[in-house]
């Protein structure tokens, strides 16, 4: 019995969401009194043994570069094989892009029940019950996994990365990848931006900004906070901002530590994508805007006046 956690990486670096999954997996292993191991498919530039600091004792690595691009089928076959050789009974992913593609396949291959988007550690007092977000963040479900092997994908930003120190033993795992059928022909990354789903802080703006030419004040605020940018749906629909910034029920669901909403009314469909944020700040000139009911802090005022002042004040705080 052991816990196996997928170490997901891109451009040679382990993703932050994956460090959260390691922290989560180590906690699950501790709870069950079994060892926790990471599974690294492919290669990274970082020191792999140092991943032990997140509480895992072993990293199994298949150092084959085929795995540096994602083909969910190739990944699932390798992970399924690794679960067999390592005797894992709990398999953990981040509920990020990789986890969403791969965890369901592993679940089906192993006939192992999947809880997708876990927000808490399992309750193992009697059985194995994991809390997950449902109704697009408006509620939670406690899901009992009844199969022998359990698969969990952990919602990004639900677990704080915790480095407890220590090094992991790195063991090579002999898995031959099956032939990839998905061929990646182009990668377009928005350089210099903090990816929305990895961000601790998100600065978001809506139709209250009046037009795309006014986004400078939003970008400046995001910049001083090292925050990712987001927007409401009509903003993306009118092409003021790119689609990958659209949050809400039909856009990205985010759960950062801090969500700052500027000139966004707070429609139920918008809130559905952001209301798992730890702290929400609203800046809106209409005191009746529904967002104030969901927010933790608010300023009733004109964004064009308040936001530059806020940026300046944060700059001062950060020295």
């Amino acid at each position: 019995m052991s816990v196996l956690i997928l170490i997901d990486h891109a451009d040679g670096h382990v993703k932050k969401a994956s460090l959260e999954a390691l922290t989560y997996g180590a906690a699950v292993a501790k709870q069950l009194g079994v060892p926790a191991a990471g599974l690294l498919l492919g290669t990274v530039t970082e020191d792999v043994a140092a991943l032990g600091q997140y509480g895992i004792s072993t990293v199994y690595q298949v150092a084959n570069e085929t795995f540096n691009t994602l083909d969910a089928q190739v990944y699932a076959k390798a992970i399924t094989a690794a679960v067999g050789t390592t005797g894992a009974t709990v398999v953990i992913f981040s509920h990020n892009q990789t986890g969403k593609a791969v965890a369901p396949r592993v679940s089906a291959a192993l006939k192992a029940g999947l809880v997708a988007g876990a927000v808490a550690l399992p309750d193992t007092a009697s059985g194995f019950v994991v809390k997950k977000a449902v109704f697009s963040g408006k509620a939670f479900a406690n899901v009992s996994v009844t199969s022998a092997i359990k698969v969990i994908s952990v919602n990004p930003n639900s677990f704080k990365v915790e480095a407890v120190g220590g090094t992991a033993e790195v063991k090579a795992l002999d898995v031959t990848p099956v032939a990839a059928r998905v061929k990646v022909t182009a990668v377009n990354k928005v350089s210099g931006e903090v990816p929305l789903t990895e961000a601790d802080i998100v600065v978001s703006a809506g139709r209250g900004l009046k037009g795309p030419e006014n986004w400078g004040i939003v970008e400046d605020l995001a910049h001083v906070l090292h925050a990712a940018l987001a927007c409401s749906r009509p903003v993306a629909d009118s092409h003021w901002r790119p689609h990958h910034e659209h949050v809400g029920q039909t856009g990205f669901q985010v759960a950062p530590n801090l969500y700052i909403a500027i000139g966004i009314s707070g429609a139920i469909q918008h809130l559905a994508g952001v209301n798992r944020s730890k702290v929400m700040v609203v800046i809106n000139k209409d005191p009746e805007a529904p967002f104030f009911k969901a927010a933790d802090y608010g300023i009733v005022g004109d964004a064009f006046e308040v936001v530059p002042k806020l940026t300046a004040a944060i700059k001062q705080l950060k020295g």
Partner: protein
Amino acid sequence: MKILVCVSKTPDTTSKIAFKDGNTKFDEAGVQWIINPYDEWYSLVRAIELKEKDAATVIHLVTVGGADTEPVIRKALALGGDEAIRVNAEGGDSFFIASQIAEIAKQGGYDLILAGKETIDFNGASIGGMVAELLDVPYVALATKFELNGTTAVVTREIEGGEEVAEVALPVVVSCQKGVAEQRIPNMRGIMAARTKPLKVVEPVGADNLTQVVSYELPPAKAGVKLVAADNVDELVRLLHEEAKVI
């Protein structure tokens, strides 16, 4: 070209989310059911667009659900598609539902299976991947664009901080999200035509449930907003730094 579009029903996005029977069941009282937006706006519309370009394309819709899903399936047929299949089963978990869809897919010999990115009620984002595994075909998740080039699918998918273009030979399962197509409104002709389109009902095959929802809960109520005067942003910064400790 034969396309299978997975369609599920979900509560309307403005529905009040409440639970009953000791928080073990979703309270459906007064809830309006709609086609899951990802299925309707993106997968289904993209399939219809492909058929508009190539009349030889056949579109089947599949839903796993009770008789009460039929109005939603008819609405989907009003948008387009040739026939619908309803697997008559209620309340299964993701693996159970995926097993049913995989069975329909095996029998129909589809070139392309489209699912939504996720259902907006269960938020599993799982069924597409499970179906692909059960069929042992490739899976491209979170597509933002979908093109066909002969028998090769050219799919743009979301990755952290950007997008990636991938090519894959059919058959393939793809989960669709915003960008793949634009929402359409069904027209009168479509609504009339949908009435006579075949809606087959089949019984489920045996499959396990690997998970079960034991209870639901609502998020704890917020303490209420703390308002700061517009000319006192320093106070907001102080609160965020010292009280909330988020900056």
